[in-house]
């Protein structure tokens, strides 16, 4: 009995000992391999960089001739690391070296691997290498079963760039997965002006999500090319399309889109009116002061708030209009005018003038303060009456507010 027990303990101990030995040996082997790779990198990197900065056609002489099997990962690491950090001639040369040394072929084969992570990694590396000749194969990967592979392929196509990569990416916006559509839209937006024409041409064939994404991409790129095309979208039956088109027009900021945005202020759907009001402010369309004043009476708060903000952005004409709106019959319009005159600092600027000797400026300031008092919007005025550094201003405000000023004080 004791013998069986002793043998069992010895057997278990032996297994643990062997396992520990294997783990230690494995770790030692990995560390020595990594140390060797670091040493090898220190040797090869300066030569490869020197080649990248120069004009020599092939990288092979810099790495001692043909690529040795043991150097494969080290050279790949060096070329990929640096290709990600530069643009221009150096990046092209590093990409050419990756092709010349057979990495691009290997990654193209990797796109057919049965392991999804290998397909994803291959797609990513082809993008970093800027492998033009992999475009067709990357386009096929846009239909991969695994979303991560599709996204990495899309990212790679975005990095490779050029017209050949744009068309399939625009088509990929029709992705059934909404999250993928958003990421592809980001990639397309990063490709800037190259994608504008393709987006407009492909738009009729897109599904709704893709159309909305396309409009957002145009807003981010801010090219003047699609302005007239976007104005046509303002009559689309879908309210979200109309709203996104307004947003894009505002973001692009062409002064020519002012009249179209003013017309959109009459849209039956409030989200469209709200974005149109905001867009008018972004393009500083001074001719829209009257329609914006009318929008201050809109039944939806967002429309009123955006219209007030746009009047502020338009400048003195807009501020004058906000001032006039203090006497409007509509209580909501008056309220927005008050908020914006306060937020823009106009009220504080006028209050400052109360400390001056009598004259037209002071009269105008008093007139404004009286109107604030009449409509009952005295919160900020009371605050200034208590805290303003100028005693004359505090006294004048106290008189206008009908309260007794604290003798000699109330302010810092």
């Amino acid at each position, binding site marked *: 009995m004791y013998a069986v027990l002793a043998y069992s303990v010895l057997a278990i101990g032996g297994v643990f000992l062997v396992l520990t030995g294997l783990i230690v040996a494995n770790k030692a082997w990995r560390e020595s391999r990594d140390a060797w790779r670091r040493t090898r990198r220190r040797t090869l*990197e300066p030569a490869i*960089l*020197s080649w990248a*900065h120069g004009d020599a056609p092939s990288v092979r002489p810099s790495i001692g001739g043909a690529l040795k099997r043991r150097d494969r990962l080290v050279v790949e690491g060096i070329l990929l690391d640096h290709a*990600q*950090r530069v*643009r*221009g*001639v*150096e990046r092209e040369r590093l990409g050419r070296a990756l092709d010349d040394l057979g990495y691009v072929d290997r990654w193209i084969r990797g796109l057919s691997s049965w392991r999804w992570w290998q397909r994803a990694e291959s797609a990513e590396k082809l993008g970093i290498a800027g492998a033009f000749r992999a475009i067709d194969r990357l386009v096929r990967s846009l239909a991969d079963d695994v979303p991560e592979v599709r996204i990495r392929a899309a990212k790679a196509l975005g990095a490779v760039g050029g017209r050949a990569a744009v068309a399939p990416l625009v088509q990929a916006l029709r992705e059934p997965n909404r999250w993928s559509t958003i990421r592809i839209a980001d990639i397309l937006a990063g490709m800037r002006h190259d994608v504008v024409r393709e987006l407009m041409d492909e738009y009729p064939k897109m599904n709704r999500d893709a159309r909305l994404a396309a409009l957002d991409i145009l807003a981010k790129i801010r090219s003047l090319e699609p302005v007239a095309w976007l104005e046509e979208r303002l009559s689309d039956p879908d309210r979200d399309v109309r709203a996104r088109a307004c947003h894009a027009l505002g973001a692009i900021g062409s002064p020519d889109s002012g009249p179209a945005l003013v017309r959109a202020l009459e849209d039956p759907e409030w989200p469209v009116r709200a974005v149109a009001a905001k867009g008018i402010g972004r393009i500083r369309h001074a001719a829209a002061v009257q329609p914006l004043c009318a929008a201050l009476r809109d039944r939806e708060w967002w429309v009123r708030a955006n219209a007030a903000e746009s009047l502020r952005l338009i400048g003195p004409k807009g501020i004058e209009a906000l001032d006039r709106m203090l006497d409007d019959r509509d209580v909501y319009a008056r309220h927005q005018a008050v908020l914006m005159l306060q937020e823009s600092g106009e009220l504080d600027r006028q209050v400052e003038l109360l400390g001056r000797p009598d004259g037209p400026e002071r009269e105008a300031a008093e007139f404004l303060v009286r109107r604030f008092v009449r409509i009952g919007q005295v919160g900020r005025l009371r605050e200034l009456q208590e805290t303003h550094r100028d005693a004359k201003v505090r006294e004048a405000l106290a008189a206008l507010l009908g309260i007794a000023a604290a003798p000699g004080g109330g302010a810092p």
Partner: protein
Amino acid sequence: MVKPARVLVADDDPVSARFVASLLEERGYEVVVAGDGEHAVDAARKLRPDLIVCDVVMPYRDGFDVLRSVRAEPSLSSVPIVIVSMKDREEDIVRGLEAGADDYVVKPFNARELLTRVRKLLNRNGRAT
């Protein structure tokens, strides 16, 4: 024989720092690399470089802090400084230039463009390769 211009490269990303260093060494500049903001300021004080290429996001002291410290030293106040950063927003670029940088290059950068900017700044200060 003309002494080569000395360039201090401050970048916590060793790959990026090695790339810039090799690019400049290839063109005959003497290059010193600092891996963080603290070392960059120390190296600038001790070595008196003719130009500094500086990243923004670095440990201990960021690039803007390095800029301020270098500009505060009377003997270093006229050393040209090129910011090389991933931060590509308009406000970052304006902030860098307002803090006293002579130029701002966004990563990933075009190596030949960076080289031209470095050369122009050194020529302006009367230092060629």
